[in-house]
């Protein structure tokens, strides 16, 4: 029982982060390898905002998300757009460089000390007994609920809103969209904003539950296989993929070798690349576009 709860909770974090990868990839064909770092940065921003506004999580969290979304938009216009027309991998490496800079800056600004967001936000992470041998904490429930709600919201956004439709169109053929008189850069920037916003959601939830420190960026890298296993172009794929990867990881820890916990997502990834490289919900054509 506890096993499955752990899987679902971990999967919810992975799913939130994978959504960011997918959003960015769909929009600008870039893998954002700084996603984990941006998630961490957002959490540190939340920490700073919470220092100014202690115990007001209702103000801190929206402010953080807004700030994170703005950072996403800024990143697109400053770093990614100038890479248009260059080899795709160069743009990916720009995100790597960005991640390194963030790592350095975080230490410079916030020191390498471990911080606790929960205290500042005045959140008590209580344990709830669901069943005998199965407990879940308040924040874990929040994580699952938020992940599901966010996916539902994103699905509705892409299906029913005009901007969502435009973003789908931009993902397919940005040039054609420009020929129809629409500035696709703005759409890409929105996608980056959304993605970093979701990363901030994941970051705040995860670091409030656990701790805030430089190493949490690693979870961003571990969530990356989720996005790929689900299909880089497919949001819907991220949910089952997150469950699959989380299942592999928790199984590895509990039944095989705890040291495998970092390796498990990548083993799943390798298997996926060999069996179905375009992902659970992707299409083979996707491979050709890379």
């Amino acid at each position, binding site marked *: 029982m*506890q096993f499955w709860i752990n899987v679902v909770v971990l999967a919810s974090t992975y799913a939130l982060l994978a959504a960011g990868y997918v959003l960015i990839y769909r929009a600008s064909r870039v893998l954002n390898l700084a996603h984990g770092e941006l998630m961490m940065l957002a959490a540190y921003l939340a920490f700073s905002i919470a220092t100014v506004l202690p115990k007001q999580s209702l103000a801190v969290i929206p402010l953080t998300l807004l700030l994170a979304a703005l950072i996403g938009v800024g990143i697109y216009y400053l770093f990614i757009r100038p890479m248009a027309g260059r080899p795709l991998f160069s743009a990916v490496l720009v995100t790597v460089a960005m991640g390194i800079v963030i790592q350095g800056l975080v230490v410079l600004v916030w020191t390498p000390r471990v911080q606790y967001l929960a205290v500042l936000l005045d959140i008590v992470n209580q344990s709830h007994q669901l069943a005998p041998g199965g407990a879940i*904490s308040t924040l874990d429930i929040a994580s699952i609920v938020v992940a599901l709600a966010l996916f539902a919201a994103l699905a509705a956004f892409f299906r029913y809103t005009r901007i969502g439709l435009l973003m789908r169109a931009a993902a397919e053929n940005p040039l054609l969209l420009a020929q129809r008189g629409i500035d696709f850069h703005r759409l890409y920037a929105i996608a980056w904003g959304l993605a970093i916003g979701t990363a901030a959601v994941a970051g705040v939830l995860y670091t409030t539950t656990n701790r805030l420190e430089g190493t949490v960026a690693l*979870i961003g890298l571990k969530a990356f296989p989720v996005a790929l296993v689900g299909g880089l172009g497919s949001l819907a794929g991220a949910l089952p993929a997150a469950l699959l990867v989380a299942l592999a990881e928790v199984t590895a820890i509990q039944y095989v070798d*705890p*040291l495998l916990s970092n390796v498990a997502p990548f083993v799943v990834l390798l298997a996926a690349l060999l069996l179905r490289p375009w992902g659970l919900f992707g299409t083979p054509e996707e491979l050709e576009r890379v």
Partner: protein
Amino acid sequence: MRRFLLVGLVILSLMLSAVGCQTTPAPQTGAPTKPAQGEPYRIGVTAALTGPFADTYAPVYEAINVYFQQLNEQGGINGHPVQILVEDDAADATKATSNATKLVQQEKVALLTAATLSATYGSIMNISRSAGTPVLIASVCPTQAYPPADPLVFCPASFGALYDGTAAIRFIKETAKEPVKLALVGIESPIVRTNFDHVTKIASESGIQVVTRQLMPPTATDFTPFATQVQQAGANWVFAWSPWSSQIGPFDALQKLGWKGDYLLWAHQPADEELSRRKVDALYAIAGNALFAEELPVHKQIRAAAQKYKTSYPVEYMAEGWVTAQVLEQTLRNAGWPGGAKAMQAALAKLSVDTQGLRGGPLVFTADNHFRTKAWYKFYRWNSQQNKIVTARDWVGIDVVPSK
């Protein structure tokens, strides 16, 4: 082809010599040396100032730095100031190697101090051995410091693996009210593994059953699965011995799962702060240095120095480095001037340092024991009635004997 090769070599050597020209005359700025005049003692430090374990190791450097800044202003040692040359290795073995090389071979420090992850020790000791420079390890003690000790390796750090485990088991045995089902929690590293093997052995000798052992990857951030294992194994006591994050992380995760049991962890620098933050009576800390909660005179001294020189870490993090600095000071005093590597080594090999209450007794090195003759431990916990950290058990001393 040949032409290209030569041009390449020219570029390479020019670049290198360009770097060379820059470095040779580089003036070294260390501690301000107003009152103490003359040539300084040069002490090298390689420390994990950044990286995943920085909060354990960086404060060690800060304390040493503050200690000697103060000392230099008060006239230095034997009339000479002490210069601390620090290099950051970020707990990375390659960087530690290059730092040690630089400090020993270029800066010609008389003594090398390391406050970093154990994985870097191998190369640091190698370099110290090749130059005959003694090395003072201010993080978890390597086996080379235990008797019979390596002539060049010394360790004043409070935590020392096997003896910590022995003390912990004695404490649990004395404190537990019901039969103990013990879980051991730590990161996957050889030194932790060795300690836990030892703990398992002496636990069974004292009638304590070890129900599970959780060795987690050093980079783990989500401890829920490990906590689940502990809970499902039916443990009612946990002994955690690792870097701070991976001790307190599993504790938080256990709380999250609704586990009710007693949890003993090693009192790294954040212990003061975080015991008070969590306010859980069942959380115990085993300490090698007296916690600041006690407000001893030496604590007040450290507090004053830390405030004066503005450390970036809280004062509660400074005890470990303070003891190292005390050891350094005593060594320099005994070695006299000019105090080369040989003199330092000789001084260290018969050293007795009064820790002013930070430890349970004096820290003594002998010719073949570079760890300490007696290892001292004190136990703390949160007391919610008094709303403060209290002593759970006063200083216990364990005699250090040569292993067979």
